[in-house]
């Protein structure tokens, strides 16, 4: 009956005739850097992937360009150094919250509480740093982050151990921590922050020289790591991008870094000279790097994607679903704590005026606008950062033009809807491609 040739000789094993259609789909699914042999190949594969809806961060980057052109044409103040740096600082809170939200979104869950969790963290920090307690800045921030992580742990445990939907548990969290915030803030309704270091997080800048040194060091490390990684793969005969593409990637990073430092080092002061890279930009970059590493290069990150893709498969592979889910909620709340610290630092206080409901909706919107899927399984820390900049950009640009909050909300809603539509359409395309 079946006479089968020994393994090594394969070429004509019962040929699985790939139809043209299937071949095209397979082609589209493979990231360009994996199959491209030359730069031309790389570009061609990238373009066909984009056409097929596997566009990655391209829509959001395109959106940013569009917003820039639009607002600049309407108000020439938009693309000034001062406004752009201001925009980055505004975006920091959204970006950090959104990076947190990405963890649970990858799992196909949601966390609606992080706006008020961030505010609760900020209140803990402000209280601890206040003269009443007089903790040093690092202890106050540490306490805030620990409290937020603990909140994530509790919510995660409720969700996994009782088996409740995260939507409901964190909706309860939204209400509960709004209450906790009011309780901490007490009758005054405001805790001012007088600690210089804490206030500096959102308002101080590196000196011009420091900015250059830090940027060159970061790009240098990135270049070295990328080059070593890619050339090791090439040597091992594994799929790897061609050297030109590696160099282009590092070159692009350098170019972006130089542009950012030049922008930040331009004098943006009105009365006195203000220049330099804001600390908070560095903080966002640091969080981005750490979370990107965690998601891409560790088992925990791998398991998050696996659970988001097919929880049953992950379970059968021996992954502890509950542990990974709880870890994701802890990471989300912890990152929200960082956002809370930045938020309070910018206002030099924390008060009952904080709108945690809008903050969390902006965070989810930012993550989705950046390219993270609401359906689970897909998402990157970078999505949160870029989406946060888009939201801050709309807010900033419309503010410059004198629009009210009413108009800002409506436009942001439109952008969110567009992003979710893109996500759903791309997903349908992928599912149909199976």
């Amino acid at each position, binding site marked *: 009956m079946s006479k089968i040739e020994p393994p090594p000789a394969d070429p004509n094993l019962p040929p699985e005739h790939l139809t043209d259609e299937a071949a095209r*789909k397979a082609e*589209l699914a493979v990231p360009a850097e994996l199959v491209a042999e030359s730069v031309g190949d790389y570009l061609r594969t990238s373009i066909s992937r984009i056409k097929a809806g596997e566009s990655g961060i391209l829509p959001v980057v395109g959106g940013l360009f569009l917003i820039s052109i639009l607002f600049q044409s309407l108000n020439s103040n938009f693309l000034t150094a001062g406004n752009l740096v201001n925009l980055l600082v505004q975006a920091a809170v959204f970006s950090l919250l959104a990076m947190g939200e990405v963890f649970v979104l990858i799992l196909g869950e949601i966390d609606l509480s992080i706006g008020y969790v961030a505010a609760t963290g900020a209140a803990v920090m402000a209280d601890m740093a206040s003269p009443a307690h007089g903790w040093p800045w690092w202890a106050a921030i540490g306490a805030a982050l620990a409290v937020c992580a603990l909140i994530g742990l509790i919510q995660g445990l409720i969700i996994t151990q009782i088996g409740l939907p995260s939507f409901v548990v964190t909706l309860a969290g939204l209400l509960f921590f709004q209450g906790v915030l009011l309780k901490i803030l007490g009758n005054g309704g405001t805790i001012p922050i007088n600690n210089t270091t804490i206030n500096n997080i959102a308002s101080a800048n590196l000196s011009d020289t420091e900015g250059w040194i830090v940027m060159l060091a970061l790009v240098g490390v990135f270049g070295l790591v990328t080059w070593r990684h890619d050339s090791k793969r090439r040597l091992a005969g*594994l799929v790897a991008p061609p050297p030109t593409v590696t160099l282009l990637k590092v070159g692009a990073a350098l170019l972006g870094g130089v542009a950012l430092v030049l922008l930040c080092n331009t004098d943006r002061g009105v009365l006195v000279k203000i220049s330099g890279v804001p600390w908070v930009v560095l903080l966002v970059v640091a969080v981005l790097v750490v979370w990107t590493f965690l998601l891409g290069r560790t088992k925990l990150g*791998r398991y998050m*994607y696996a659970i988001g893709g097919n929880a049953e*498969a992950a379970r059968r592979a021996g*992954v502890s679903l509950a542990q990974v889910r709880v870890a994701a909620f802890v990471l989300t709340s912890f990152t929200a704590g960082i956002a809370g610290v930045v938020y309070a630092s910018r206002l030099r206080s924390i008060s009952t005026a904080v709108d945690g409901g809008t903050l969390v909706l902006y965070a989810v919107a930012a993550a989705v606008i950046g390219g993270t899927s609401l359906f689970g399984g897909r998402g990157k820390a970078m999505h949160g950062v870029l989406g946060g900049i888009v939201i801050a950009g709309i807010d900033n640009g419309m503010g410059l033009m004198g629009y009210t909050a009413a108009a800002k909300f409506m436009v942001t809603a439109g952008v969110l809807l567009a992003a979710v539509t893109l996500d759903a359409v791309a997903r349908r395309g992928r599912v149909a491609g199976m």
Partner: protein
Amino acid sequence: MSSSENGGEPLLRLRGVSKNFGPVQALHGVDLEVRAGEVTALVGDNGAGKSVTIKTIAGIHSPDQGEIFWEGRPVRIRTPRDAAALGIETVYQDLALCNNLDIVQNMFLGRERTRAGVLNEEDMETAAQETLSSLAVTTVRSIRQPVASLSGGQRQSVAIAKAVLWDAKLVIMDEPTAALGVAQTAMVLSLTRRLADQGHAAMIVSHNMNDVFEVADRIAVLYLGRVVAVRPVAELDRQSVVDLMTTGESSRMPSEPERTEG
């Protein structure tokens, strides 16, 4: 047929295995032997106990009565982990792959290799590549493509290769060709054959007589929770297997193995 020598100790032996689910007796004293280097097909009508049998071997159900011998030693397989520790891997119908992960990530899911806490992608990719080429799975364009982009046959191949990567001595496949087209079925069957030729034991559960007769060395027929026949494929024909599956007996089976229906 190229059956290996039948004298040796079977890799897996079930003896008198019974299983009840409340008042329903799913298995009545099942006796079954599975040998390395052979493809054993498990056939039977719906409700005959095929699934319960493989789930018993895979550690999902534990038998109420009877014994399981692995390489001649009596063993208790209480959990899927026990089964994996012995070298039993099961490829279920729904494959249990993550569409958003690539082939390497899926093959190593849950057993990632790390160096200083960081995923060692090079190591995993090399090992996955070696396994795939040893099984002559070469139709995939890149082992770094997400599983979502693979055809049904390619996915089945990845799921089987995953089992092989984990040094499975016995690979159980539940209806591996049920959802596949003609060419892809041929691909998976040839992979199954290759698995056995490499010295693994392969066990395939199927409804499809064409597949069974094309790839199996030995056919075990279940009827209402009993094994009514275990025979080399050469001693059976399609009609007799269908008779066994539907009535539990076949008039011509024992005496005239090679007779064709007419």
